[in-house]
C-alpha cells in the first residue's frame, strides 16, 4: 500500500488524498504534508530552484523510512512524492500522506517520514536568486527534529 515516487512532474493534492481515502473504510484519519518553494532563504530573493537526487539510493532511502514508520505506527496507506529538476517559486516540492484508524498515528508517521527525509534522503537543493546560484546548506534544526524520534 505504499506509493513512493521521485518525479519531475507536479502532483495534485486531491488525487493523492483520493488515493489515500477512496475505498478505505478502515481509516478515519488522513494526514497530508506538502512542502513548497518559499520566496526567501537567508534574505535572498529566490526565483528558481534545482533539485538534484541520487537515483536508486533516493528511492531505497524513502522506502526504508516508510518501513521504519510502519514498524512504529498503525498506518495503512502511505504516499511519498518528491520532485526533482527545475522548480519555481511556490511550486510543490514534496508530499507525504498517511492514513490510519487513529489520528495520532497518521500525524506522527507523516512527521517522522518528513523528518527523516530531510536528514537522510539524498536530495540537494540549489537556489537561483538575483544574486546567482547557491547550494542550500543543511540546517542543524533538521537534525534536532529527527533526534526527537530516537
Amino acid at each position, binding site marked *: 500500500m505504499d506509493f513512493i515516487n521521485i518525479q519531475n512532474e507536479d502532483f495534485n493534492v486531491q488525487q493523492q488524498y483520493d488515493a489515500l481515502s477512496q475505498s478505505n473504510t478502515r481509516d478515519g484519519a488522513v494526514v497530508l504534508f506538502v*512542502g513548497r518553494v518559499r520566496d526567501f532563504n537567508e534574505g535572498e530573493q529566490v526565483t528558481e530552484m534545482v*533539485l*538534484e*537526487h*541520487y537515483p*536508486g*539510493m533516493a528511492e*531505497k*532511502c524513502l522506502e526504508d523510512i516508510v518501513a521504519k514508520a510502519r514498524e512504529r505506527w498503525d498506518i495503512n496507506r502511505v504516499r511519498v512524492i*518528491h520532485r526533482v529538476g527545475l522548480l519555481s517559486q511556490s511550486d510543490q*516540492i*514534496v508530499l507525504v500522506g498517511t492514513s490510519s484508524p487513529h489520528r495520532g498515528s497518521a500525524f506522527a508517521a507523516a512527521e517522522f517520514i*518528513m523528518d527523516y*527525509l*530531510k*536528514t*537522510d*534522503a*539524498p*536530495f*540537494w*537543493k*540549489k537556489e537561483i536568486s538575483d544574486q546567482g546560484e547557491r*547550494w*542550500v*546548506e*543543511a540546517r542543524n534544526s533538521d537534525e534536532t527534529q529527527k533526534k526527537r524520534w530516537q
Partner: protein
Amino acid sequence: MNTITVKFFARLREQSGVDAMDLEIGDMTKLSELIAQLQDQHQDWTILQQKNLMAAVNHSMITDDCLLAAGDEVALFPPVTGG
C-alpha cells in the same frame, strides 16, 4: 586490484567536474582510506575536506568506517537538503 565506482553529487559533483569515476583499489581498502586518497589527489575539491562530508556504499548511508569490495558503488556528497 578491485574496481569500484565513486559517485559525486551536488556541490562536490560541480567541484570535481565528474558525476562518477571508476577506481582500482587494493584488497582490504577502507572507506576512510579511499576518502583520504581522494583528498590527497584532489586538494581543490574542498567539499571532500569538510567534516560533514556524507558517504553511502551501495545505496546505504555509512556513518562508520567499512571495508570496500570489488563492484562497490561509493557515493560522496555534502549533507542532504531535500524536502
